[in-house]
């Protein structure tokens, strides 16, 4: 059954997955080229300077909002077909625990996003580690991590908004989600989120409960 659920979600999202994957990987490669260009045509010291002296998540900050956008797009692609003509009734009718069904669907989306993020961020950090010290790589990684966590958060929140049955609930959900997501973009300094990132990840995981709440509201038959 889990395989069938994955199969269905994959049919919905595969095209978007590959587009997002290609976009983010291309962006990582573009950033890698920028670093390579500086090393080759200016000097590796300049790259060091950029990281050590400027110290503002340099290079990677160009893709700051890309994970956020990827999360929103994937959530729409995966859940808009479910709410169109209230197809989610079919999804909740199959003999599978309803809460688990919804969480499985969300986990598949999170897994797809994580794959995209790991590959794109992995390419960047792998290349970076050939030029600068591990401390600098880690620092750069930590600067980018909140943006990627924001990508997962945007996916979960937009999914919950899609399933929410009332427009009033969607608007309130949209506004509160925007405020929450803003937290991830308060600072681009590498160490800005060192102490709070674990807490933020826990809050993002708790956002799965909002999806369940939307499902319960749908099952109650709430409407505008």
């Amino acid at each position: 059954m889990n395989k069938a659920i994955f199969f269905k979600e994959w049919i919905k999202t595969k095209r978007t997955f590959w587009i997002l994957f290609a976009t983010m990987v291309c962006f990582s490669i573009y950033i890698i080229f920028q670093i390579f260009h500086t090393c080759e045509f200016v000097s590796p010291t300049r790259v060091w300077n950029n990281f050590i002296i400027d110290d503002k998540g340099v290079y990677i900050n160009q893709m700051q909002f890309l994970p956020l956008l990827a999360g929103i797009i994937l959530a729409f692609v995966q859940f808009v077909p479910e709410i169109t003509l209230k197809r989610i009734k079919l999804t909740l009718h199959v003999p599978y625990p309803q809460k688990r069904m919804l969480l499985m669907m969300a986990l598949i989306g999170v897994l797809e996003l994580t794959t995209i993020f790991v590959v794109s961020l992995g390419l960047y950090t792998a290349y970076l580690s050939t030029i600068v010290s591990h401390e600098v790589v880690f620092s750069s990684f930590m600067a980018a991590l909140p943006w990627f966590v924001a990508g997962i958060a945007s996916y979960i929140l937009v999914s919950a908004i899609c399933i929410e049955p009332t427009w009033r609930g969607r608007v309130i959900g949209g506004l509160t989600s925007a405020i929450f997501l803003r937290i991830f973009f308060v600072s681009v300094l590498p160490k800005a989120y060192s102490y709070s990132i674990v807490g933020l990840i826990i809050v993002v995981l708790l956002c799965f409960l909002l999806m369940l709440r939307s499902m319960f509201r749908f099952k109650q038959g709430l409407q505008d």
Partner: protein
Amino acid sequence: MNEAVIECENLTHFYGKRKIYENLNFTVPKGRIMGLLGKNGTGKTTTINILMGYLQPRGRECRIFGENILNMSPEKRKRIALLLENHVQYTFMNIEQIEKYYGAFYPNWNKDAYYELMAKLKVAPKQLISRMSCGQRSQVALGLILAQNADLLVLDDFSIGLDPGYRRLFIEYLEDYTKSEDKTVFMTSHIIQDLDGLVDDCIVMDYGKILLQKPISELKKNFKTFTFEVADQSVKLPNDPEFYHPGFVKGLGEINTFKEAEYVKKVLDDHSITYTNFKRKTITLEDAFVGLTGKY
């Protein structure tokens, strides 16, 4: 009487302050095909939504296979096939993909029944359901229901949007399947003729209440429409509690009732209404429905 597959007790539902119905009671016995009839807005789809757990009724409860529909287990859902209004399905899949998806959830999945019906469709196996006509989509939905081999079929307005050919095909398949397999069916339809000869029992709903629940044969046998000529058509026909929507149609007085001609004549006489050419009209199920619920 057979065991009840669906039981609804004192079901009450409001949309905001608008009452849909109050204290609605009905049961659907095992092995029967029950048609839920009613004009637009009387709560047919609302009832299906409540039964399937997509709407929480304000009052009391419904049970299917003895289990409260609000907390229905996957085991019980396995025994229920659901056809949503407009034959809604996963249109982003093709006919092979959708069969593969649903097949994983149902242990008694009958793949052959599905593909037998799909063979009638002039579509390529890889064609997306979204690119099919309404009739073809209805066949996909029906094929999935037949393959599921469920004990209870819940069909919401199955004939909507179908041309006569597809409607007939749907009905014939459904009829063969339900009669031969002793299935229980709960269905709604706007096209009353479709239900004639298909359903065993019917529930006729009016705004806020059930008008009657009877076997179709009994309804067709006992429900009568009498017509008569009245010289003065400005006269108001008696509003007897046994009469349904008495009035004038095309210059003829018309009374719908379960009572015999003698009773109708007596009421007319008691109200000093002079009439001639008193006749019982031959009626179809649709006529009976219109007679019970009124034209508008």
